[in-house]
């Protein structure tokens, strides 16, 4: 079972003018040149490889890191690899004001913690959240605490299905759990 409390180092995806990058699309997260890859262990090395300023992300990311991105994260293609590449790197969670609908589902189905947070832009502009800070989040209650700066804020907690899927590990495991009850 996965942890409901996630603690990790923050990576804020900022552009060269220090603004949270919005509409990061799946070609920037996981470029179409590597779509033929079906082995998850090979995907991590390409994570964010086409996002300006973050090409070296895979070599610098650590297990448990928490990514903070702008609105509509994961726009574009339906590729699962754009989620799987973060699973390879054992990324703890991704926070954004909103996610593209397909990316949102793909992440939930694969057990990657994705959480919406409306306060991110404000937290960053007021220097209450910076890259390298240590964040602790509770996916069930939506409570978040920046341990580095001793600041509390809230996230949209996971909904019931999202939480059940996250606890089960992925959609397949969840499907087996509910087999015989709701699912045929």
């Amino acid at each position, binding site marked *: 079972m996965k942890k409901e409390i996630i603690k990790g180092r923050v990576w804020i995806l900022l552009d060269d003018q220090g603004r949270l990058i919005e509409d990061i699309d799946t*070609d920037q997260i996981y470029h179409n040149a590597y779509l033929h890859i079906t082995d998850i262990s090979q995907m991590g090395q390409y994570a964010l490889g086409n996002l300006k300023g973050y090409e070296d992300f895979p070599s610098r990311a650590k297990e448990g890191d928490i990514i903070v991105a702008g609105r509509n994260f994961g726009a574009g293609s339906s590729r699962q*690899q754009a989620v799987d590449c973060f699973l390879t790197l054992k990324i703890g969670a991704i926070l954004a004001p909103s996610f593209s609908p*397909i990316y949102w589902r793909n992440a939930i*189905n694969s057990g990657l913690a994705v959480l919406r947070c409306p306060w991110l832009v404000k937290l960053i502009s007021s220097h209450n959240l910076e890259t390298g800070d240590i964040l602790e989040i509770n996916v069930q209650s939506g409570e978040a605490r920046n341990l580095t700066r001793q600041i509390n804020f809230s996230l949209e907690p996971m909904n019931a299905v999202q939480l059940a899927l996250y606890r089960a590990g992925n959609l397949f495991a969840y499907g087996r759990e509910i087999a015989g009850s709701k699912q045929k």
Partner: protein
Amino acid sequence: MGQTIIEKIIEQHTQDEVRPGQIVWLELDLRTARDFGGPNVVKNYEREYDDEPVADASRTFFTFDLCTTGCLLRYADNQQICRLFARKQGLKVYDVDWGIGTHVLIEEGLARANTTCVGTDSHMNLLGAVGCFGQGMGDVDITFAFRTGRTWFEVPETVKIRLVGQPEPSASAKDLTLFLLRKLGTKVLAEKAAEFYGPAVEALSLAGRITLCSMITEMAGIIGFIPRANEEARKEMEKFSQEPWLPLQADPDAIYFQEIEIDISGLTPQVALPPSPANVRSLEEVAGKPVHSGFIGSCTNGRFEDLERAARILKGRRIKPGVILKVVPATRHVYEECLQKGIIEIFIRSGAIVLNPGCGGCAEGHAGLTGREEVQVSTGNRNFPGKQGKGEIILASPEVVAASCLTGYLTSPEEII
């Protein structure tokens, strides 16, 4: 309580209570995978379910459209992985000779009004053009759908959009779509369904309806419906579905998240500049910008009518020396119609390249990529950095692409004709 269209379609496909925000188990009428995502589905399936049969082989398909010449070994390999799985499971493959999967599903009468359909294509929601709730999904979702015939889905809110006024005759469905992207950006429809009303949108042909509905994805929306159609569009849809086109209609007292009116009076050609599809300008503002190549096709603009409109501009003229124009009909059906009506001949005589059907110019499609510093004017739907090679992609209508390839710079079709 009144319901919107998406709520009604979902209600017909679930036992659960339907209201926005509620998560329901949704029955899927069609589940598909492409040569992109498909091999991952096969791999997931065999790992999770071994030799267990798919829920219903007659409703489960592969549609190959990304690399329809198999020119890249990795796609040739992946296509074969899917074929072998399909043979074992008794599934039909719409192979590389068919064309774009979403369009094939419409032409084959599989995707029809009031049905649900999923696939590994983020533009699956273009099926909204015929009133089908199509939804693109990742390979985990599709694997589960293959095995169970269902998935979980959060009922979205609906935004009602009324378009008022009449565009200029020079504006096409793509210009209307790009203009809506300009107005709505990626915020207004984010995670929402949309319903479009008004004379201009209801006058669209099936090709035009597909153009608009395909780019709901670029607006970050779930799906768009155009609940009314003109006689010509209705006839075309009925020709494919072999049944009267009777899409579910929203109740008069349906509850919308938002109702918006957009004035499209005097609309002229629009283009989307890099780095994103919502970065839309009127063509006038940027006319004269040099372009090196053009692409006509894609799930957004690859229908017969799209190609015919471009051919009208190219007829009897030659593409500017040094400019390359690639044309990719969406499907075999479209290709045949172009052939019968002399459209292919016009393209060839103008100096264009015509490739076999498929996605063509998007991602690593068989129409190839753009090189560094190449500027391509394209009828596709995305221009994110690196999406189609290293060049710059400008999104436009088929007419604007054709006109620009004649002159070598962004050109209004009116300047040519």
